[in-house]
């Protein structure tokens, strides 16, 4: 008699039912769809959906199904021809009121969607889309941060009437700027200076140095503080990127950190790369400054010197060089909203500031009525040129005065920027709205993956996989007869389980993932083969059938366990250290080992016990 604990049967049944449920959405496939959202980000309602559908009906575009999801309207179509027709119709009719995104919607019943059951997403190599990899200039972000400290230090010293020679951002033991260095003349008392600096330098360790003439205070960021700052910068970039991607209206985008200082953005279905890349990668911030009207900009251009307290801008959109005061009234990251509108003076961007910037703006406009204020757009980019066959990159900061206007009235946190072209106003509003990105980022990689090749890839790969698996099933059944059929069932359960896990984790399936599945199937087959060969060996020794089964499972266990654990080690290490495709492979492999161990050891045992366990007079095994 063979027995198998009842709780194990229950566990197997529960796991199989659950995994079938989670794997099921993959069976239905998907329909071409369009996601529609309002440009001003207010939620769409069912009547809006009905209005769009009826408009499309008038245009002879047949919509298969429509519903509202997360404030966006989803339209589903029978084929891509209808999908394209619908998108063009919506674009022509609603213009800038709505943004649309081409996507795919699962054909699974609504109940699945309600329960959060979704099919596993396909990787870009299988589905097509845009892949971008950005390098975040983390060192630059630390330098910027220190620049802020230096400014605070200058202000604190001036307020306390303490004389100083110089305040600079410096390198203090390390390979990047990590300190602020304040040089004091001999007559300044170091301890009073230090006291004055306690406020701006809170939490930073400071040291003093004696110089031949005077002394210096050096405030250095600790490694932990630098790391914290860098993480913050990356997080900020990711947030900004997510905002920008949302602005573009791409469905199911992936924005994630890769390695220490890189961000990878995957936009399924996006084919118009130039436009997207331009908006995503733009490092832009705004500064509002008063114009210096008491000095002549022409004179400054001639002498090459700007008067004290002012800065000369030669790159402008207003057709003349301009002198602006050094004080910044407000910056782009203090913006709370930016929308493009039409005014009497032409296209404009309507802005709203946070309360602090609003206060500053109120104070400035009250004191400077009828004077002029300018908006400076700061863009950063990296240019790579080849010098003697080596790639040399240069960081370029482009400061451009985009607007200069008379302050017509006193305002605080709400006003317009005018004097822009129509397209410009929209792009500027979009950039400002999606967050000014002050940490420089540089594109490392940009790839457009065509959907047609992707479709071919997946069809061929999946077909080959199905044929191969069918071959395995037939062969196992011939070679091990009844046990072979058990192995087939177990293998099938393994594939269902793996699909369920991948769908649950929302891990996207790519070509290397398919490689992982093949290895997993190989390992699962091997586990079964190990058990059955052992049973055959025992039978050959003349052991009774049921004892042979028991001995087979027991003796094969150590081989299965050790070989799977070693492969699991490889899988986990590749998961941790690998990037991109290696990681995709490792995720599938690691999960696959878990599922194949479960199915081969427990599932197989349960089935064999059901088959042979109760038979008292068993003389032969069908193996």
């Amino acid at each position, binding site marked *: 008699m063979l027995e198998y604990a009842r709780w194990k049967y229950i566990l197997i049944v529960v796991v199989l039912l659950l995994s079938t449920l989670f794997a099921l959405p993959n069976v239905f496939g998907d329909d071409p769809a369009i996601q529609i959202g309002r440009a001003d980000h207010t939620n769409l309602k069912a009547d809006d959906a009905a209005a769009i559908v009826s408009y499309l009906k008038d245009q002879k575009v047949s919509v298969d199904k429509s519903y509202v999801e997360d404030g966006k309207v989803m339209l589903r179509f029978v084929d891509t021809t209808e999908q394209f027709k619908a998108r063009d119709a919506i674009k022509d009719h609603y213009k800038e009121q709505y943004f649309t995104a081409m996507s795919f919607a699962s054909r699974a019943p609504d109940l699945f969607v309600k329960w959060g059951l979704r099919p596993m997403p396909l990787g870009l190599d299988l589905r097509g889309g845009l892949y971008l*990899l950005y390098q975040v200039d983390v060192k630059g972000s630390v330098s910027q941060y220190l620049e802020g400290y230096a400014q605070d230090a200058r202000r604190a010293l001036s307020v306390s009437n303490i004389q100083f020679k110089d305040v600079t951002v410096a390198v203090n033991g390390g390979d990047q700027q990590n300190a602020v260095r304040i040089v004091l003349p001999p007559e300044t008392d170091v301890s009073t200076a230090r006291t004055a600096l306690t406020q701006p330098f809170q939490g930073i360790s400071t040291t003093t140095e004696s110089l031949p003439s005077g002394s210096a205070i050096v405030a250095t960021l600790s490694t932990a503080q630098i790391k914290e700052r860098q993480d913050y910068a990356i997080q900020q970039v990711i947030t900004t990127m997510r905002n920008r991607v949302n602005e573009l209206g791409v469905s199911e985008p992936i924005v994630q950190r890769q390695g220490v200082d890189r961000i990878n953005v995957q936009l399924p279905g996006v084919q118009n*790369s*130039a436009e997207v890349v331009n908006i995503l990668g733009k490092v832009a911030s705004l500064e509002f400054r008063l114009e210096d009207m008491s000095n002549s900009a022409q004179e400054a251009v001639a002498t090459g010197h700007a008067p004290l307290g002012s800065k000369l801008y030669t790159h402008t959109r207003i057709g003349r060089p301009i002198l602006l005061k050094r004080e910044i009234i407000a910056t782009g990251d203090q913006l709370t909203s930016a929308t493009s509108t039409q005014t009497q003076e032409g296209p404009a961007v309507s802005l709203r500031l946070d309360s602090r910037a609003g206060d500053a703006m109120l104070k400035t406009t009250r004191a400077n009525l009828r004077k002029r204020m300018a908006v400076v757009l700061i863009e950063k980019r990296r240019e*790579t040129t*080849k010098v003697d066959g080596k*790639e040399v990159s240069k960081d370029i900061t482009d400061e451009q005065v985009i607007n200069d206007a008379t302050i017509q009235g006193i305002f605080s946190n709400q006003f317009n920027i005018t004097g822009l072209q129509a397209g410009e106003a929209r792009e500027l509003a979009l950039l400002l709205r999606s967050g000014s990105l002050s940490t420089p980022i540089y594109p490392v*990689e*940009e*790839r*457009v993956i*065509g959907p*047609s*090749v992707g479709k*071919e*890839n997946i069809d*061929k*790969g999946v077909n*080959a*996989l199905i*044929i*191969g698996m069918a*071959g*395995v099933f037939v*062969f196992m059944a*011939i*070679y091990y007869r009844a046990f072979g059929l058990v192995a087939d069932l177990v293998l099938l359960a393994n594939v269902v389980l793996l699909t369920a896990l991948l769908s649950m984790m929302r891990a996207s399936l790519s*070509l*290397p993932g398919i*490689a992982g599945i*093949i*290895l997993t*199937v*190989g390992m699962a*087959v*091997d586990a079964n*083969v*190990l058990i059955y060969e052992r049973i*055959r*060996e025992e039978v050959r020794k003349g052991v009774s059938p049921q004892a042979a089964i028991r001995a087979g499972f027991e*003796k094969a266990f*150590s*081989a299965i366990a*050790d*070989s*799977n654990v*070693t*492969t699991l*080690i*490889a899988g986990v*290490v*590749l998961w*941790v*250290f*690998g*990037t*991109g*495709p*290696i990681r995709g*492979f490792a995720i599938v*492999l690691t999960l696959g080992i878990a599922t194949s161990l479960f199915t081969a050891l427990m599932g197989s045992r349960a089935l064999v016990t059901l088959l042979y366990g109760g038979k008292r007079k068993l003389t032969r095994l069908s193996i």
Partner: protein
Amino acid sequence: MEFFSSETKFPFMATRKVWYTLSAILMIGSIVSFATRGLNLGIDFTGGISAAASFTQTVDVDAVRTKLAAAGFKDPQVNTFGGSRGVNVRLAPDPSQDAKTIRQKIEDTLKAIDPSVQVQQVEVVGPQVGNELKTSATWALFFTLLLIGMYIAFRFHTWRLSLGAILAVIHDPVLVLGIFSVTQTQFDLPVVAAILAVIGYSLNDTVVVFDRIRERLESNRRLASDVVLDQSINQTLSRTIMTKVVTSIVVVALLFLGGPVLRGFSEALMIGIIAGTYSSIYISSAIALDCGLTAEHVFPSEKKAAIDHLP
């Protein structure tokens, strides 16, 4: 159905010197070819532009190459792709032009050959990612080998088996790289995934044989080690062959039906599966034997410390 109805008695260990020599020759050949010829690295590693186009009729690859070269693309590589009508074009990176311009240029050039040609895919790949992948893959492999060596030493109580396993695991990918280098088959990311799978298969095989060796050593402490190893390998032989046949069914299906994208991948897997079978017998086990593996290493005899506790 069975491949071997009774236990085989092949004297594997007796001929190991011959196989060592063969392995040494193959390894040296692989490394020499790798060092001198290198690999035919795919666009994933070199960086550049990759484009796929499908023509309406059978296309002359040389004509496409000449036209592209005449259009100003330096050293264009053109291969047929997915049948005689499709081509895959690989171009050296050109930072001065964006993907759109390049796509247009390729399209214009190919249109001159066939007006209804369709350019399906233009990818721009940065080479830096290749470098990054190389570093991360190197570290990942290093830690994998280290941890696996430690795990085997822990489970089998001897470094001799760890060494055998690690050498076998190195042996197989080197051979795959060597063959890819000699044949100049394109080496791209799916091939990297295949090599990882090969490592997985090879490890699996090695550990299964080790498990049997451990079992045999325990029950036959007095038998000579080479006899025990031969018995272990023979006893697991039908499992080894069965598993290989089954995995080969899937790999062969991928090789012939999986399309050009999976060609390199399935070739690497096929080579790896054969090499893995061989190395689990002649590398991992034989090396452990020549390092002096005995039952004593795996199952140390218990010290008679109990005497002290007697009254």
